[in-house]
């Protein structure tokens, strides 16, 4: 087994054991790439916890993990998981777009659709609609 796969064995085992669909684990130029779709946000978070345990603060740079969450589909409820600030809702998909609304940390809003994996179209309970950065949205199970 390659050294990287040995180093990240616990992470790989968890990917295989936790129902990640379409999982792909491959190595290129000294970097282990892990992609797939986790059945829930919890599973995804667990994978990141394990990754962070093996490589504290992710500083080594020998893994690129891009795992989506299966429940993040149009119509789903998503929770705002910003660090502490409000989440910007923008007119279009990009930080250069004007801000048309805000969602509070912890607020549960509706995922309307996806411009891409980074920018999701959301609607607040007040009816404000626009694009937010998906890293700050976690599907509510």
């Amino acid at each position, binding site marked *: 087994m390659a050294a990287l796969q040995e180093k990240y064995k616990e992470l790989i085992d968890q990917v295989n054991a936790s129902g990640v669909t379409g999982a792909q684990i491959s190595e290129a130029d000294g970097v282990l790439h892990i992609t797939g779709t986790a059945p829930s946000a919890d599973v995804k978070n667990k994978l990141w916890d394990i990754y*962070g345990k093996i490589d504290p*603060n*992710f500083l080594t740079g020998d*893994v*690129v993990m891009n795992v989506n969450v299966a429940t993040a589909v149009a119509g789903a409820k998503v929770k705002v998981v910003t660090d502490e600030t409000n989440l910007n809702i923008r007119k279009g998909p990009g930080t250069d777009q004007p801000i048309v609304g805000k969602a509070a940390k912890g607020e549960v809003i509706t995922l309307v659709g996806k411009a891409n994996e980074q*920018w999701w179209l959301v609607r607040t309970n007040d009816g404000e609609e626009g694009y937010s950065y998906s*890293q700050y949205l976690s599907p509510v199970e």
Partner: protein
Amino acid sequence: MLPAFVMAMALALSLPSCKSKPSDADIQTQVQTAISATPGVSADVKDGVVTLSGLVGSEEEKSAVETAVNNLKDAGVKSVVDNIEVEAPAAAPNVTAADPLTQGVADATKDFPGITATVADGIITVTGEIEQSKVKTLKSSLDALNPKKVDMSQVKVK
């Protein structure tokens, strides 16, 4: 005798200046005030005809100056010749659109003020300082852009 003479002289001197048309110099003074709000414009007055020249940034400024001077009919302005030129808008800087990864990195790192990230050959190199609680969000945001590698070895975690 003397006071009457002085008064007559004063009348003789004052009357013409009241009734005659304003001199070009007088008009020039008025016009100068009117155009002072718009730098880059100058005015010449000859026989009450004002010729405006210079360079302004927009068509709106040009017409605003012309209107302001036209409104000085009472001050003796007969007509206005508007030779003001409008500066061509600066050509849009010829930047090639950022590639998707570079754009994605800019979006992903926006909320991390102490962090700088550059992209070269599909590899994201991150430098700067970040709180420990935010490292995971940063890394997962960058990994989600499907780079070849995310090099955070130079990042200082506080």
